[in-house]
């Protein structure tokens, strides 16, 4: 019994230890971010309509999301430019990097 446990644990520990170094050296250490592209994906995403929820409410947010999905227009285009449900100034406040990382509750 115990030698079987020993064999399993010894080999498992060796494999996983080596795998950790392999993951670190050959993958994680060399990762770079494509920041510009990632940011564009955020601003084109319908998901960001969630940030507007406390200000314009669920129904209006859902309506904009539905329209964005249907027309291919961005949330910014619909909320600020077309429907004018919030101002550009408020938009910039909500979608500042600082507010996106550590969101403050903004409802006016």
């Amino acid at each position, binding site marked *: *019994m115990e030698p079987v446990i020993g064999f399993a644990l010894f080999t498992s520990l060796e494999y*996983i230890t080596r795998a950790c170094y392999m*993951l670190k050296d050959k993958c994680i250490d060399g*990762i770079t*971010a494509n920041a510009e592209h990632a940011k564009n994906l955020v601003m084109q995403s319908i*998901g960001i309509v969630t940030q507007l929820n406390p200000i314009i409410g669920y129904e209006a947010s859902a309506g904009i999301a539905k329209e964005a999905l249907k027309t291919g227009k961005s949330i910014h285009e619909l909320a600020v430019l077309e429907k004018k449900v919030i101002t550009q100034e408020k938009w910039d406040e909500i979608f500042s990097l600082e507010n996106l990382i550590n969101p403050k509750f903004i409802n006016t």
Partner: protein
Amino acid sequence: MEHDFLGEKEISNDCYYGVQTLRAKENFDITGIPLSSQPVFIKAFAFVKKCAALANRDCGILSEERTNAICFAADKLIAGGYTNQFVSDLIQGGAGTSCNMNVNEVIANIGLEHMGFAKGQYEHLHPNNHVNCSQSTNDAYPTAFRLALYLKIKDFTKALEALRQSFFNKGQEFDGVLKMGRTQLQDAVPMTLGQEFNAFATTIGEDILRLHEAQKLLLEINMGATAIGTGVNAPEGYAEKCVAYMNDLSGIPVVLAHDLIEATYDTGAYVQLSGTMKRSAVKLSKICNDLRLLQWSTLWIQRNQPAAHATGFFHYARQGEPRYSGSHEPNLLLCNWRRPDRNHGSRGRTVATECNGTRNWFCPVYFA
């Protein structure tokens, strides 16, 4: 020519192992992987034999001369010598008797040469009567095994710490990189890439703590228990003396189990370690899957734009050779996680399937 209670067998004079090891080699051809593949285990075993000899000497049942010979031989093994003499298969019948006898015989023969005798002149230093004095496979083997695991876990936590630091550094580096956060693979709300990598670092840090806990359980040993924990054939005070030597000479704070009968049959600490390792393997597998998703996300979101195939969140820049959109590296790494799990029984296979390049990312590992 050597004999045991089964009869006589011829052994090359170059060998430091004896007839019982030879029989083990013949009888147990299971993994094809010999004890010599685990140098840490051999060292731990030699260390246990040394402490047992010193305790036996202090109890007045082993002569100074024989004790010195055993210690000399054990120190040679601890220094990494004679590794090729450990020929018994890692898996064998029983509780490790072949491994124990392999160690006893090699120590006896190194000791005999040191005392000025020829190999095999066991009347002067006997593998069973002297090297294995006051011991049984059932206490010496698990004690050495636990010490070896303790040291191997140290290596593993060191590797995890290096990985944790790497994720943490990337977390700092990607501090200002905005990305879409997801739930159930769907766009949710924004976050930064730094936050995500920092969470990877945190979760690995938690696993390091769990490993420290599992490691601590291995410090409880059963020297002096002998065959079933009753301590038959071990002198009064031997167990305590043996543990004291182990503490003093290794600096590893081993403790004697208060119930030696329980400690001799219990495998709880091994099950705990196995579970903790599985926890780490599953979590690392999840991180690797997340990395693949991060890399491929552009293909999913903008799959109608050919240009999207040439870009992604990540460029794998290794040795100055960027690999755009290639999933080659994470694939390699994900596949790697199959092996640690493989050894934990059939449940591990679910994890293997998950990492097998199928896109079934979240098949029910936890409910397997």
